[in-house]
């Protein structure tokens, strides 16, 4: 467990280095040209509730006006002047391909509210603007995804100790962020056992299609994968609502998936037939009362398959 925490902390660090400014920055920068008046900047700040507005001429950053500059302009009575001569000209910028660590360090050191992002080091071409909040919320999202990932693996390894070769995964309805984590984890276990790549691939596809179906079409359920000496058995059970017409559901192209599912790249009605063709044995049962249950078997040693074929 302690080791797990260490790994998580290390991951957060790695993440910080890997996340680039362009992934978190805001691309829709509100800016004004240097011919604008201080008054115009002030109105823009008021309207958008910003504390700083970049001044941009022909796409290039020329300077920045902060709320302090506006207050001084009121004090000294030059609020109707053009911003050109009153703006801060040597603005600290950050190139978009820099790590957010660099941005964080600038925020810490200078207490800026925002840093203008330029296209590349040495240019002034403004492509975005980044705040500390942008970095923080992005990071939190990532850490959350990783923490969930570790939780899954942790539950899994507990199961591994107690049940020998049975791995069980809970699958949550509509949880697309984690869709496929169970299947990719299983795949790693199978690879560790030196099962042939093509067989591992078939098992992984069955698991993944099944996992996606439970996430997309059901109220939730679980997947249990049993690794035996000569075969792998996959059982997927969900809590409903069941499939009204199984024969139809097994036809390639039949789907009830909606537009949202299709926009994610799924919902072609190919999952069930694909599972069947990847499996050596495949059975599906569904009831409108209890839900859907699928059992698939893939032989991991070649001769079993041949024996089976002779029998049929």
């Amino acid at each position, binding site marked *: 467990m302690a080791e797990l925490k260490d790994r998580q902390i290390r991951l957060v660090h790695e993440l910080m280095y890997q996340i680039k400014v362009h992934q978190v920055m805001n691309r829709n920068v509100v800016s004004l040209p240097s011919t604008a008046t201080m008054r115009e900047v002030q109105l823009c700040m008021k309207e958008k509730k910003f504390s700083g507005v970049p001044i941009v001429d022909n796409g290039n950053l020329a300077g920045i006006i902060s709320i302090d500059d506006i207050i001084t302009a009121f004090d000294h009575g030059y609020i109707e002047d053009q911003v050109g001569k009153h703006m801060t000209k040597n603005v600290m910028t950050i190139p978009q391909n820099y790590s957010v660590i660099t941005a964080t360090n600038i925020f810490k050191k200078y207490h800026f509210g925002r840093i203008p992002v330029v296209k590349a080091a040495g240019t002034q071409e403004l492509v975005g603007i980044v705040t500390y909040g942008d970095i923080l919320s992005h990071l939190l999202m990532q850490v959350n*995804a990783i923490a969930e990932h570790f939780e899954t693996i942790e539950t899994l390894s507990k199961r591994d100790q107690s049940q020998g070769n049975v791995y069980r995964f809970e699958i949550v309805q509509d949880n697309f962020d984690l869709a*496929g984590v169970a299947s990719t984890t299983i795949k790693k276990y199978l690879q560790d056992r030196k099962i042939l790549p093509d067989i591992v691939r078939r098992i*992984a596809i069955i698991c993944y299609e099944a996992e996606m179906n439970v996430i997309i079409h059901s109220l939730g359920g679980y997947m249990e994968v049993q690794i035996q000496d000569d075969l792998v058995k996959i059982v997927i059970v969900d809590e409903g609502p069941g499939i009204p017409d199984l024969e139809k559901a097994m036809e390639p192209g039949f789907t009830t998936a909606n537009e949202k599912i299709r926009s994610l*790249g799924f919902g072609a009605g190919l999952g069930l*037939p694909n599972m069947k063709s990847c499996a050596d044995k495949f059975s599906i049962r569904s009831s409108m009362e209890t839900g859907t249950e699928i059992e698939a078997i893939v032989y991991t040693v070649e001769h079993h398959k041949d024996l089976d074929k002779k029998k049929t």
Partner: protein
Amino acid sequence: MKKDKITIAELIQAIEGELISGEDKLDRTVENFGATDLLSDVLAMGKSNYALLTGLTNVQILRTAEITNACCVVIVRNKQPQPAAVSLAKRNGIPLILSRLTMFDACCRIGRLLENPDGRIEGSPNTAGT
């Protein structure tokens, strides 16, 4: 003479790609190609060691690539991958490549590369497509 295998590095060059992850796998060979926005199709395609070209940007493109033994993933049309996709690609070391070309143009470039014996890319006509 036709080539039937190209390396990931050659692929990147052909489609003017930007590599985001998997820097250590540049000299791996690509044996097959799949170009689609339908992951269901990719799963049923039955190919391994293929380059997946897609207009999708979600984390599922990488999970699907991992499940099906794809060797790299290309996002076309200058789209930015979702952060979760980038971090998964980095964690798993799968080469994730961004290209500003359209799907059609990217496929044409790859086709030309496969046809061209010395692998050099000639200037491309200004094709329109999505």
